[in-house]
């Protein structure tokens, strides 16, 4: 199986990922090869198997519920400390809405 360029570009758009033409061409091959291997799972009849949604859950249903107590977070200054662009206590991004 090989993915088409169109399929690769569609998935890249879903993932918000810019790919060069060379990258798209290589993805068609690479993804196709791996997805073909993944199709091996279809050999198994899993109609009666529940999906493994939890890795380990041996405690009671409410065991992981914490007390509802107020705890300090890391604070806005620390949260913004790695922002590429910040101001007025916010993350700044390119304009989304045009001014009328």
């Amino acid at each position, binding site marked *: 199986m090989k993915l088409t360029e169109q399929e*690769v570009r569609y*998935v*890249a758009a*879903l*993932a*918000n*990922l*810019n*790919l*060069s033409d060379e*990258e798209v061409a290589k*993805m068609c091959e*690479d*993804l196709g*090869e*791996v*997805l073909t*291997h*993944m*199709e*091996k*799972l*279809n*050999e*198994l009849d*899993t109609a009666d*198997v*529940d*999906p*493994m*949604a939890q*890795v*380990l859950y*041996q*405690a009671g249903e409410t*065991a*992981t519920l*914490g007390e509802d107590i107020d705890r300090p977070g*890391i604070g806005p200054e*620390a*949260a913004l*400390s*790695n*922002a*590429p*662009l910040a101001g007025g206590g916010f*993350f700044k*991004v*390119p*304009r*989304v809405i045009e001014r009328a």
Partner: protein
Amino acid sequence: MTIPSLTVTGIRQGLADREFSAVELAEEALRFAQAENPKTNAYLHFCPERALAAARRVDERLARGENPGPLAGVPVAVKDVILTKGVRTTCGSKLLANYVAPYDATAVIRVEAAGGVILGKTNCDEFAMGSSTENSAFGPVRNPVAPDRVPGGSSGGSSAATAQGTAVVALGSDTGGSIRQPASFCGVVGVTPTYGRVSRYGLTAFASSLDHIGPFARNVHDAALLLQAMAGRDECDATSAFAPVPDYTAELGGQVRGLKIGLPREYFQGLASETGDLILKGVETLKRLGCDVREISLPHTEYAIGCYYIICTAEASANLARYDGVRYTWRSPRSETLGDMYRNTRGEGFGAECKRRIMLGTYVLSAGYYDAYYLKAQKVRALVARDFSRVFQEVDAIVTPVSPFPAFKLGEKLDDPLEMYLSDIYTITGDLAGIPCMSVPCGRTGAGLPVGMQILANHFNEAGMFRLAGAFEAAGGFEA
């Protein structure tokens, strides 16, 4: 003191005998690590201020006559996907080259509370995706045993530092074998604990249902002590386990006579290689120690690779969505609109392997494919886990190879992603089932390359796993 051959026990003794202070040890360990690091590129950066502050706290405790902690003064390396407050944490990615973590991972807090001295952060595959540490944005790591070869991955910096002696122990992370495989390639001990045994809080998320933090060390005892210090419930990670943490080192030196060991047929088929021969010699050692070795079957093994790469890429595509140029340091300068900013930042920032996994994960989760891939994989994961729980009714531990081959040459497998994925076959099953597993050195090939034996145990039976590994190590591994 000889830095590269220090052990946790030796450091404890040296501090108690006033042979050296924790600060003297930290200064000497930093000097040695910084001088030796260019040979391997194992460390990405050092944090001397933090190390010396931790060492001073140990000396102060000793001066007051207090217990300085089980890891007192021990030089520790931390994989650069684990957050260290005030210290750069790059995840091996260009995107995070200047990211300074605003808080500490729980494991880091616990290691320092136990007296550990963190020297610096170690190189790894970008966002822990890879099996060779060649996917780092900051250059590959060389294997200290054979400098033209890879150290394994993704925690290759941590395994190399431990083997090279530039750290006494190290923290790594394992999603599909990223602790055990590099431990095997570098000839050190590496442990992936039960899922939830160590808090993931502050571990940069790759695949949340598969991610673990675990220890590297040059012997089983030190690995057990480091895991002990990190393990236990943490309110900051809802998946961290409540189960009490036993005294792991108390089990070392215990009897292994009569332990039932399973050799899975599926793992040994077609393993006609030096690696296979060394593992079988290791099994002979276990028999001489009185273990009851028998063949077992884990029938869903051949489906594990496909299952793993669906689940891990799906989770990765979601976890990596946050690196969009808004919050995490790097933003593409070419960003006129918000959408451009997202797409350009990610397109220019991520390396080839991360892009491949984001694409695979997005594909298997996309409309129309979810049931066929992701849901199917979650069901197959249940079957893989069921294989193990059935077998652990019959045996106490399972023994297998860690990798089909020893450390390969730099660049040798870079062009074939599927082949690289297939080489994870022996390690991913333990992660899928969430059981504890480890690599313990099992001799070297004719060319002098280390080979690791994998021991897998049932959920939360780290103590039994360490007991077997400790007895194997004490018996001289395969050479006994």
